[in-house]
């Protein structure tokens, strides 16, 4: 197992590089300086976010194609999404992003108390987002708009939607997108909340100071990324075809 204690030999290494030989127990053995370690971690997170962009990008790509193939069907199905919930969730995530950004700021300035409070706020809003999402999923379930589960799909004409049956087939594609995209996003939110809980626990134990806050920083980047994905999902899934009565 790796021991975080720096061996004497390695200390001389850092010295020979003319680096600041400030002995920080958080400095891992294979880095020379805290700065190098911080930069590596940040760059690593950015590279990871690159892969995340492409991961969601695959779904956005398929979405783009189908939406251009079946614009009317997408407009029709979007009527079954509740844009109010979507907007509320957007606002919730934006608040959580703010508190996250402030948490990173507090960590940088070494304000431990503020960091913990802000992390808790972030976790709270993250959970609120998931709660709203659960409510929405439940509404779709009750409304029989879950093509994934046999017996929970009904797209026949109703009083409210007198002409929707014509889109019954392609509507399933949009609902698949809806559940896959928001589902993968929700998984990322759950991971994010778990990450925040870990960071919070670390903060409680006093792991961070003004010289070491790398985990806060990089989890913050992740959190903001998940927020950005939602910023795009919101108009793409909820705000289609709201301008006119559907034909």
């Amino acid at each position, binding site marked *: 197992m790796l021991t975080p204690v720096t061996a004497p030999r390695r200390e001389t290494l850092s010295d020979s590089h003319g680096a600041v030989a400030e002995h920080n127990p958080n400095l891992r053995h294979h880095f020379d300086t805290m700065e190098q370690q911080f930069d590596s971690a940040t760059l690593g997170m950015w590279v990871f976010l690159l892969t995340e962009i492409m991961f969601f990008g695959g779904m956005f790509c398929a979405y783009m194609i189908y939406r251009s193939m079946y614009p*009317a069907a997408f407009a029709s199905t979007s009527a079954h999404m509740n844009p109010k919930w979507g907007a509320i969730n957007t606002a919730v995530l934006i608040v959580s992003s703010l508190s996250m950004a402030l948490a990173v700021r507090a960590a940088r300035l070494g304000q431990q108390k503020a960091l913990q409070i802000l992390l808790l706020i972030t976790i709270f809003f993250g959970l609120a987002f998931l709660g709203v999402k659960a409510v929405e999923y439940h509404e779709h379930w009750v409304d029989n708009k879950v093509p994934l589960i046999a017996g929970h799909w009904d797209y026949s*004409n109703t009083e409210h939607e007198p*002409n929707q*049956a*014509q*889109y*019954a*087939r*392609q509507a399933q594609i949009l609902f698949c997108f809806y559940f896959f995209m928001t589902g993968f996003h929700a998984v990322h939110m759950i991971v994010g909340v778990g990450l925040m809980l870990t960071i919070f626990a670390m903060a409680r134990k006093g792991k961070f100071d003004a010289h070491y806050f790398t985990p806060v920083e990089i989890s913050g980047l992740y959190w903001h990324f998940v927020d950005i994905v939602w910023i795009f999902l919101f108009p793409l899934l909820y705000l289609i075809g709201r301008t006119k009565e559907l*034909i």
Partner: protein
Amino acid sequence: MQIPLLPEAASTTAPYVDYLYWYMSAVTVIMTTLIFAAVFFFAIKYRRRSEDEIPQPIHGSLKLEIAWSVIPFLVMLTFFWFGAQIYFANASPPSDAMDVYVVGKQWMWKIQYPEGQREINELHVPVGRPVKLTLASEDVIHSFFVPAFRLKHDVVPGRYDTMWFNATKPGRYHLFCAEYCGTEHSGMVGWVTVMSEPDYENWLANSGAEGTMVQQGERLFGQFGCSSCHQLDQQGRCPNLRGVYGSRVQLNDGKTVLADDAYIRESILNPNAKIVAGYKSDLMPAFQGQISEEGLLQLVVYIKSLAINKAPGEVAAPGTQPARERILPNGVKK
């Protein structure tokens, strides 16, 4: 034993593909020989003669780098150019091409002719006449591949694909499914028989057919109850289909769509997808999963035949397609 090198070249396209192939092969052989020769020559000439030998470094040459980037690229552009020429020449069939309809199904090729003959894993065509294949798949992706014609096209479910060829040499040629399609993929093979014109007419006459495809389509049109709503002489509950094929149809969302094979197919399977202006949705049941691709093709051919102002059921002369000019503009609703 005879070792075959090239498949028969039996279509108008084949010789061109072969020329290109030989040209590219020649370039490949020359290039490979040059590289091999250089490597061998250097390896022998500059072999290490003593353990301490240190050769003078040569760091590079901009001129050489540019030369061996640009020249191969120009050669490759010629490949691209000729390849694209042939590919585009094969893009759309000539207007006088005769129609044959092909359905790929795990694991067989079902072929039907406008005159009504049907075959499995056998395609008979006359020599010297362009043939247009309309390809449909019942299940997964197949690929219609005739090596002797140097042509192949995937058959993708949910759409019609087309390919065409003009056979130049009578004979029997392999027909393969080239896109992996499951268990008996390698059994999804057949023969393309190219016959002289009289032989072909003879074959047509002697192959039993239960009526032309138009008649078969008309029969289905009755069987599925289409005719009770889509009346051909007056406006029924549903659009009159006479003259629809090949026209632009006004839809209820304000758009128009060209009534081609794909549109008719979609309208049968999923009538609600594109609704003609002035009609309601849900008037017509969806036939998704109820009609085979072959039946669909018959219906399409039948509806196509209605485009020409002839009595329904009358055989359209082989190879005649509705010319776009003859269709009344917006012939859907009067």
